[in-house]
C-alpha cells in the first residue's frame, strides 16, 4: 500500500470531515468571488499565466533588478543555495541582532517551513514564536501545517481548546471567538518582547524592489513592524516585473485562496524606517532562496514555479479532501505539492504523484494555469522509469494479462466470478453488474 492510502485509512473521521467540509466551502467562495471581481476570469488567468511564465523565462535580469532596487531602498539582500545555507544566513543575522533567549516572532511562511528554520533557531537558544493563529496552534501541538493557507484545516475547536488549556493559554472554551482572543493576549506579550521578525514574501517587484505580503490577521504586520529587525525569506521565483502587475495578482491570490476581493492587509514594504520616522524596523533583510528551484527551472517541471501558493488546487482536489496535507508527507501538499516536492527535491519523491485521480480540477482552478495533471503524468512516467515508483503486484499481473489477447479474452469470462474474491476495493464499492453478453460477442453477432 502506498503511504498516502495508509495515512487515509488511519485518519480519524472527525479530521477527515474538517478537511473535507472546509475545502468544499472554500472552493465555492473562490468561484463566487472571482466571477464577481472579473468580467472574464478566464482572461485574467491567462494574463497571469503569461506574466508568471515571462518571469521564469527572464529570471536573471528580474532578480538582478530586484537586488539593485532593494539595495537603493536600504534592504540588504542575501543569497542562499540550499536550506542549510539559508538557515545559517538567518541564524547569523539573528546573532548579530540579539542574544540567545531573545524572542523571534514569525509570520506564516512556507519558505521558512521548507527550510525547517524553527528547529535551527530553537537549537541556537532562541524563543521562536509562530504568530499566525493556525501556525501558533501547530507549533504548540508539535504538529505540522496540513494546508499551505489554512494550516489547521485538520483540527476542530475542541482540539484547539484542549491544547490551549494544557499550555495555559486560557481556560477551556468551545467558542472560536474566545479561543482567538486567548491567542491574541498570549501573543501580544511576545510581539512586545520580540527583537527579530521573520516573514515570507508573496511578491517582490523587480522594478522598484518592493516586497509585498498579504495576510488577514495582522500578525504579519506586527512581525514586520514592531521588532527592530525584519528578515524576509523568498523563493527566487517569486518576482513580478512591475508594480502594475500587482493588482491582477493580488486579486487572483485573495480570490483563489480565501474568496476575498482583497486580503485584510496588503503590505508594500519599501525599506527600513527612515531616520525621522516614528516606528518600523531599523533593518530589513531579504534572503533569496534556491533550494532546488534552479534545478526545477531547468527541468521538465518548470511550470510549477509559476505557482503563487493560493491553495485553490488543494481545496478542489478530491484526493486532498480525503486525506489532508499530512498524507503527502511533505511541507507542500495537494496537487501543487505532488509536483513541487519532487521538482525541488528530486524524483525520489515521485510516488506522491500517484495520489491523484488525474481528474483535472486542479488545472481548472489554477490562477496561473499550471498544467498539473500533465506534470503529474510526466512525473509518474519518470518515477516508473527510474524505479522510484514501484507498482503493486496486482498491476503487473494486470499488465501481463491485458497485453496478451488470448489471456485477456479468457480472463473476461472470469469477471463475474471476481465478486467472489474478497478484496479491499469492493468493501466501499460495487462491482458493475454484468448485463448479458460481452462486447466481443455482440460485435461478432451484430451483422
Amino acid at each position, binding site marked *: 500500500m502506498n503511504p498516502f492510502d495508509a495515512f487515509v485509512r488511519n485518519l480519524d473521521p472527525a479530521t477527515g470531515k474538517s478537511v473535507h467540509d472546509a475545502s468544499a466551502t472554500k472552493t465555492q467562495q473562490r468561484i463566487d468571488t472571482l466571477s464577481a471581481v472579473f468580467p472574464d476570469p478566464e482572461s485574467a488567468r491567462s494574463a497571469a499565466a503569461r506574466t508568471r511564465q515571462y518571469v521564469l523565462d*527572464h529570471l536573471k535580469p528580474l532578480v538582478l533588478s530586484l537586488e539593485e532596487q532593494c539595495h537603493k531602498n536600504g534592504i540588504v539582500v542575501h543569497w542562499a543555495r540550499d536550506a542549510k545555507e539559508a538557515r545559517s544566513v538567518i541564524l547569523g543575522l539573528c546573532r548579530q541582532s540579539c542574544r540567545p533567549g531573545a524572542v523571534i516572532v514569525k509570520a506564516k511562511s512556507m519558505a521558512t517551513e521548507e527550510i525547517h528554520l524553527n528547529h535551527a533557531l530553537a537549537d541556537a537558544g532562541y524563543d521562536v514564536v509562530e504568530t499566525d493563529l493556525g501556525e501558533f496552534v501547530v507549533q504548540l501541538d508539535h504538529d505540522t501545517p496540513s494546508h499551505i493557507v489554512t494550516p489547521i484545516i485538520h483540527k476542530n475547536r475542541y482540539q484547539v481548546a484542549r491544547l490551549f488549556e494544557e499550555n495555559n493559554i486560557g481556560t477551556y472554551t468551545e467558542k472560536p471567538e474566545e479561543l482567538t482572543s486567548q*491567542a*491574541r493576549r498570549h501573543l501580544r506579550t511576545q510581539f512586545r518582547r520580540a527583537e527579530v521578525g521573520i516573514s515570507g514574501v508573496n511578491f517582490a517587484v523587480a522594478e522598484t524592489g518592493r516586497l509585498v505580503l498579504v495576510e488577514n*490577521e495582522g500578525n504579519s*504586520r506586527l512581525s514586520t513592524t514592531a521588532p527592530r529587525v525584519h528578515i524576509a525569506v523568498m523563493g527566487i521565483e517569486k518576482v513580478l516585473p*512591475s*508594480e502594475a502587475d500587482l493588482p491582477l495578482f493580488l486579486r487572483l491570490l485573495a480570490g483563489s485562496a480565501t474568496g476575498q476581493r482583497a486580503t485584510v*492587509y496588503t503590505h508594500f514594504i519599501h525599506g527600513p524606517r527612515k531616520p525621522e520616522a516614528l516606528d518600523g524596523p531599523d533593518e530589513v533583510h531579504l534572503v533569496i532562496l*534556491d533550494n532546488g528551484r534552479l534545478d526545477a527551472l531547468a527541468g521538465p517541471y518548470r511550470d510549477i514555479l509559476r505557482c503563487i501558493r493560493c491553495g485553490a488546487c488543494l481545496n478542489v482536489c478530491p484526493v486532498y479532501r480525503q486525506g489532508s496535507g499530512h498524507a503527502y508527507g511533505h511541507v507542500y501538499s495537494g496537487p501543487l505539492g505532488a509536483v513541487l516536492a519532487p521538482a525541488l527535491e528530486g524524483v525520489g519523491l515521485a510516488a506522491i504523484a500517484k495520489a491523484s485521480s488525474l481528474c483535472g480540477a486542479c488545472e481548472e482552478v489554477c490562477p496561473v494555469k499550471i498544467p498539473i495533471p500533465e506534470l503529474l503524468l510526466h512525473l509518474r512516467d519518470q518515477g516508473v522509469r527510474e524505479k522510484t515508483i514501484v507498482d503493486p503486484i496486482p498491476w503487473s499481473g494486470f499488465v501481463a494479462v491485458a497485453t496478451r489477447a488470448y489471456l485477456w479474452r479468457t480472463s473476461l469470462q472470469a469477471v463475474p466470478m471476481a465478486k467472489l474474491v474478497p478484496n479491499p476495493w469492493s468493501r466501499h464499492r460495487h462491482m458493475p453488474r454484468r448485463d448479458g453478453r460481452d462486447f466481443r460477442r455482440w460485435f461478432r453477432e451484430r451483422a
Partner: protein
Amino acid sequence: MNARESMLSRLPKPSQDPPPEPFQLPSGDLSRVQLWSQFHTRFSDLGGTIVTWQTLAGLSDRNWIVEPGLDVGQGGMHVDCDVWNASVGVTRADLAVAETGSLLLNQWPFSRRMASLAPPIHVAVINESSIVPTLDAAIERLERTNAVLVTGPSRTADIEGVLVRGVHGPGELWLIVERD
C-alpha cells in the same frame, strides 16, 4: 564561488521579449458620489463603520494614540504614548479604494504604523477627494514609502472556518470622511 554568483550563473540567458502588458480592470466612469457609495457598501460588508468626530467623543475616557499632526479636537482625553496600551489609534488614510472597500495608509515621516495596528479600535481619517475606483489606480499612486492597504478589520477563519474579527490587528475599523 559565493552563493550569489553560483545562483546567478545557473539562471538561463533570457530572450529579448518585452514583458506582457499588465492586466487592468476597466476603471469605469463613476462619479465621486457613486464611488463613495460603492466604497461604503464594500467597507460595511467587511465590518468597517463610517463615523463622525462626535462618535469619538463617547470614547474620551479611553487611552488614545493619535498620529502627530492630526487634531482630534477633543479636550481632556488621555493621549497615551505607549501604543501597546492604547484602546484607540487615530491615523490618516491616503486613499480609499471603491473596488475593494480598502484604505491605503502610507508611512510618512510623521506616520505611526503601530497606531493603525496595535489598538483594538483603529480610526482612519480621510479627505473626501481621496477616492480611486480600482486597485490598479491605487497601486499606480504608491509612493516610495512603506505602505499598507487595509481592507476591513483584522480577521481569521483558522478555527473551523468560523469568521472571527480582531485577531492581532484592530477588530474595529472606523472611518471619518472629511470634506475638502
